């Protein structure tokens, strides 16, 4: 369980997050929605320890998150991963990064580590890419490799920052179907998304964020009023056929 209490975060005196209280129970499929600049990525980065806390607290499984993260890996998938296009790494190298938490300096990856990494690649349908150099992968393929890395950590938490950003439309449906499958296997999924139509099909819990928490509710209760409160006047719900 992840418990966020009274979290505030500001950047150059500008409030990004205000008084965030949120409880995410195990095996939930949570979507965080909100307009650009609403603080969604900031909230995720605070959870995974990429940003230092300014006030409030985050507890994971009852333990302060910084201390929890020192001895547990979390399955994180960033919105955009920066790397040198010439970086000489294969897809398997990138997935094996998910196993680094247990690897001491001077040690090599064990057969077990490789087996876990390959099985995660199989799960996300990218095992055939294991020897491919990352610069040769398409956006969608790379995204599957990054999801395999998150799974390879073995963490029960998967935290994703707009995973659909670099996938084409048909790919989004199968990507979310895969997340749903992982959720049914017991993983807690927390994802930022803009694709409301997809979210209502797959997620069970919705967090509407725009600096403050506007609501956190079961997905089926999502309605135009909530969307309006979160996004403001500028957004209208449009039904789309895929």
């Amino acid at each position, binding site marked *: 369980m992840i418990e966020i209490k009274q979290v505030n975060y500001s950047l150059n005196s500008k409030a990004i997050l205000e008084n965030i209280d949120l409880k995410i129970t195990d095996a939930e499929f949570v979507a965080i929605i909100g307009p650009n600049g609403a603080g969604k990525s900031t909230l995720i980065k605070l959870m*995974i*320890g*990429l940003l230092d806390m300014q006030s409030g607290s985050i507890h994971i499984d009852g333990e302060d998150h910084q201390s929890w*993260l*020192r001895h547990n*890996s*979390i399955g*994180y998938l*960033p919105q955009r*991963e*920066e*790397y*040198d296009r*010439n*970086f*000489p*790494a294969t897809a398997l*190298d*990138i997935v094996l*990064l*998910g196993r*680094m*938490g247990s*690897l001491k*300096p*001077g040690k*090599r*990856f064990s057969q077990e580590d490789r087996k876990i990494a390959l099985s995660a690649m199989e799960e996300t349908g990218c095992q055939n890419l294991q020897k491919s*150099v990352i*610069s040769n992968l398409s956006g969608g393929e790379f995204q599957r490799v990054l999801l395999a*890395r998150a799974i390879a*950590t073995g963490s029960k938490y998967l935290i994703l920052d707009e995973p659909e950003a670099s996938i084409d439309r048909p790919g989004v449906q199968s990507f979310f179907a895969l997340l749903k499958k992982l959720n049914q296997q017991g993983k807690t999924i927390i994802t930022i998304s803009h694709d409301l139509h997809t979210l209502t099909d797959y997620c069970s819990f919705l967090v509407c964020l725009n600096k403050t928490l506007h609501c956190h509710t079961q997905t089926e209760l999502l309605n135009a009023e909530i969307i309006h409160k979160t996004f403001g006047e500028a957004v209208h719900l449009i039904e789309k056929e895929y």
Partner: protein
Amino acid sequence: MPILYGFLINAILGALLSGFSLALFSPYVTLRRISYLGEALSHIAFAGIAIALITGLNFTITTLAFVILVALAIGRLAERRKLDETNSITIFLSVSMALGIVLISLKRGYTFDLSSYLFGNVLMVNATDLISLAVMATLNAIFISVFYKQLFYLTYNPEIARVFRVPTQLTNRLFLILLAANIVISLKTAGIILVSAQLILPAAIAANLTRKFRSVLVICLAAAVISSLGGFALSWWLNLPTGATIVILEFFLYLLSLSLRKKF
């Protein structure tokens, strides 16, 4: 004749050892896009040399301590994101050069040997220098084999590596300390120009020939050995300055790799 051979062997070993050490760091420095740091640290050493000159302290130890401290300060600023890495490198570089010039101007009657500072003098390598270079080469080889995976992922993306529990802070600090130490120790043999070339060109050559990280390291070492030995031989036969000849030969290897790149 034996004296001549002795100094020749010292020079060849000196060129090889500094080439080996810098080539080991080459892929990490270029892929992390901090090759500028290598050049900057060799300029920053100038202030260390000046401090030693004014205080009368040991040149190598004073310069080593100064450059390591500055390298760690640059690393800390980048880690804390207080300042962009390139900007902080440039600030430390210019302040160190200014400090060096001011301090040297205080030492009246002292003339600074700019040519030796820029190009080094591999022919002046003595037994003590060789021992320092050999110790550095051993430390580098141990560090890179022990922290191989940690360095690999730190180079790929330090922020992401940290999320997946790679000890990025420890790895980066050890990396910066060793990089600074290598530059100071190699400076006498190689000079600023050769140090910069040997930090950047091997990885640039390897990037044209392979996409496998292990092969990158092997090609870097091969490029360093070929250019050090070849450059040394050419400079001996054609009576040219050794450091500069090594740089030019290494550049020709780079052009050769560039022409082979199309075949991949």
